């Protein structure tokens, strides 16, 4: 038994009896405010989720899904609702993407900020707006919102029971949007918020999506976002998810994706901030010959924790899935990865590969990784791999032999490890910004 785990056990014993954890969850639920009147139609969805989450408790490390991610730190913070926030362009300017000057939605502490958003000149059949606009212009919203499997997961249900607004992106049949759609969620205060986004890419459409969580506050706020993405037949979504919350913040997010036949979903998720951050990424392939690519990068330092839980559920023949998840862990930080791949009997001729690569930069750093394959179909090719190590001495030596200082060589190798993921981002300005950030973080 290690000192850390002993301490965390003590923490569990001290705080988290089931009663405490249930009471805490009720406390979070009690913060939810009323739906605005124009969203009254969504009340039923909220109520249903409320009844799911009401009698439950914040999970403890005794539950398999949360075994390595200890939420007792969360339980020590009392959150409140956000107060109205007045921020203007100057504060968020550095986060804006030149590629998305006319396709940007900004939410401040979970509340839509029309003055900061810009959604002009979009092609016909493309809707980018908040939920209020969505219920008017896109009645099919009811066929998608909160209908993914996995909605009963506790934090997802908490979001569904509590959201008051959200982003909606709908791309109609055979539309391709050139400019990326930028969903920017800004946190400005120590509060709890439940950002929500719904993306519907209809048959044959194509869209690039940038979902970004940034912070203007240094404190311990709690962001609990849910993003749902539906891909119609032959649709294509390139999704970049960037989490740059404050290093004191809690971030527990869900991305749920459904893919109809022949659709292609490509996700790059970069997680840099958060004292405790967790990303649930769930992809459901519902049609034949669907293609899923997931790339993840988590960088944690200090005593922070970064967790990625992914699930790829194939269900039809000829599906492909390719996943690479990387973590860089320094100081006393802790990275967690759990990647499930389900290949049921119907999913013959699947080709799936999963790789978890973890770089430990300090003696106290910790990684728990669990790639998990569950396969019932016989005519498939599935592989997974996991590596955990520090930088190779040979590689450092090689660079030294070329006249590069050992210290510099290590930075270079760490940077190279990270950049493999960042390089996949198709939006140039974002890629450059993240490259800079990674350069600083890996220094």
């Amino acid at each position, binding site marked *: 038994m*290690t*000192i*850390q785990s002993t301490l965390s056990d003590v923490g569990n014993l001290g705080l988290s009896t089931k009663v405490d954890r249930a009471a805490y969850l009720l406390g979070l639920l009690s913060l939810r405010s009323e739906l605005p009147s124009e969203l009254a139609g969504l009340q039923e969805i909220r109520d249903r989720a409320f009844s799911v989450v009401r009698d439950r408790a914040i999970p403890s490390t005794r539950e*398999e899904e949360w075994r*390595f991610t200890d939420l007792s730190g969360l339980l020590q913070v009392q959150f409140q609702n956000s107060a109205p926030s007045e921020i203007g362009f100057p504060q968020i300017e550095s986060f804006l993407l030149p590629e998305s000057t006319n396709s940007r939605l900004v939410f401040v502490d979970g509340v839509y900020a029309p003055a900061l958003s810009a959604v002009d000149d979009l092609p016909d059949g493309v809707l980018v707006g908040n939920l209020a606009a969505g219920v008017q212009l896109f009645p099919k919203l009811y066929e998608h919102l909160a209908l993914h499997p996995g909605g009963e997961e506790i934090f997802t249900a908490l979001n569904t029971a509590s959201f008051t607004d959200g982003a909606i992106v709908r791309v109609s049949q055979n539309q391709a949007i050139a400019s990326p759609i930028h969903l920017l969620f800004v946190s400005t205060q120590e509060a709890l918020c439940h950002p929500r986004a719904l993306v519907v890419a209809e048959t044959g459409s194509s869209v690039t999506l940038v979902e970004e969580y940034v912070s203007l506050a240094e404190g311990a706020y709690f962001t609990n976002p849910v993003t749902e993405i539906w891909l119609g037949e032959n649709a294509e979504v390139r999704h970049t998810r960037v989490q740059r919350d404050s290093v004191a913040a809690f971030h527990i997010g869900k991305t749920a994706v459904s893919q109809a036949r022949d659709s292609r979903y490509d996700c790059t998720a970069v997680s840099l901030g958060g004292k405790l951050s967790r990303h649930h990424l769930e992809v459901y392939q519902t049609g034949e010959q669907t293609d899923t690519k997931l790339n993840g990068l988590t960088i944690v330092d200090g005593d922070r924790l970064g967790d990625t839980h992914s699930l790829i559920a194939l269900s039809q023949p000829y599906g492909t899935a390719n996943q690479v998840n990387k973590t860089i862990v320094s100081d006393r930080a802790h990275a967690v990865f759990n990647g499930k791949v389900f290949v049921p*009997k119907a999913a*013959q001729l699947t080709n799936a590969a999963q790789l978890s690569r*973890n770089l*430990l*930069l*300090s*003696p*106290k*750093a*910790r*990684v*728990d*990784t*669990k*790639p*998990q*394959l*569950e*396969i*019932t*179909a*016989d*005519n*498939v*090719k*599935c*592989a*997974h*791999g*996991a*590596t*955990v*190590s*520090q930088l190779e001495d040979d590689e450092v030596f090689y660079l030294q032999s070329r006249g590069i200082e050992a210290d510099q060589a290590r930075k270079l190798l760490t940077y190279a490890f990270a950049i493999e993921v960042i390089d996949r981002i198709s939006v140039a300005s974002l890629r450059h910004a993240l490259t800079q950030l990674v350069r600083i973080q890996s220094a």
Partner: protein
Amino acid sequence: MSATVQSLVNQPYKYGFVTNIESDTLPRGLSEDTVRLISAKKEEPDWMLQFRLKAYRQWLKMVEPTWALVDYPAINYQDIIYYSAPKVTEKKKSLDEVDPELLETFEKLGISLSEQKRLTNVAVDAIFDSVSVATTFKEKLAEKGVIFCSISEAVKEHPELVKKYLGSVVPAGDNFFAALNAAVFSDGSFVFIPKGVACPMELSTYFRINNGDSGQFERTLIVAEEGSQVSYLEGCTAPMYDTNQLHAAVVELVALDNADIKYSTVQNWYAGDENGKGGIYNFVTKRGLCQGVNSKISWTQVETGSAITWKYPSCVLAGDNSVGEFYSVALTNHYQQADTGTKMVHVGKNTRSTIISKGISAGNSKNSYRGLVKISPKAAGARNYSQCDSMLIGDNAQANTFPYIQVQNNGSKVEHEASTSKIGEDQLFYFAQRGISQEDAISMMISGFCKDVFNQLPMEFAVEADRLLSLKLEGSVG
């Protein structure tokens, strides 16, 4: 193609006969009295009884684990016979005195107990139902100072050793089934290799369940002192009954400085019929402790039987530079379920471990690899390599992998690889081109798939593993 494969894997179970022999059997059910009665029947000293009672009391407070990916109806622990032994008044000095019926049984199983007939250099401890019936080559081993006997004998004759090591690797309250075993274990093997001795021959225990309603709870303890070496093999079979029988064994290995233990298992308990009726529930706790520096423990297992296998032979690598190895082939067919793998816990510096696991699932079976590699904060320079491959035969079979990797030290290196595939049409075509029939081709590919593991079996037992493979995949091993 699948028809050929099906006929290949659907070989009947050859060891399913019952031996008619009078046995001394306790009534069904488990209580403190049962534990006392078992202890009394075995004429155990008081400390042994206390060990059992403590375990029993802990067991009462425990709940059956449910995390493994196996389904079975709830076990009624009061409906099991906890002790069943062939009726003999005392253990025989010479094999000539052993009940001929018993000797014949072991002959039928291919295990010759008559020393003069043995050609291979192997000492055997034969365990029938709950009790050791014969141990061969005891005197020859004793010359070297090696103790090889049943654990009940060891309790009487070497109490200081048993007291020191029993429960030191798998404590009585380790898990539900280990606690049950500690309370009611009936027999098992005890091996002690003194300092600096390389055991002159392979040691082997043969387990046979005969009684239809009894559970088997054996306990094996192997202690290798400084600089010693031993290679040990266990084999298991059981008759065919249409009820399920519980087998909850515990194996403990202790390796001191520079010691080397190699433990091989060929498990062929009755697996149930093609509809999943009957078969053994094999819930086993096996753990080795590399206590000393430079020590080494190597597990090799060939798991082909049992309706349900729940088994994780583990190594605790406490000594610096110690080495743990795990080589496994798990074959499941029909409605068999296997949730098996290993745990490598790196505690000492520069410890190394290797995991090679091959799973073959056919029919409606479930085959899961579940493994843990844990590098503790002090295990600087630790190294692990894991590879677990699965092969699926038929589209109702299931193959799962659950590798847990927990690393808390950056001076270590952990690698894990897994793949799942089937025998490809193009591979078969290639063989056909060379004039090799489909049946031969499949068996060659399966042999090739398992080769990394079979190569680890002691040479003397290669025959046995071959026999087993040819039993399951008859006509295919060339």
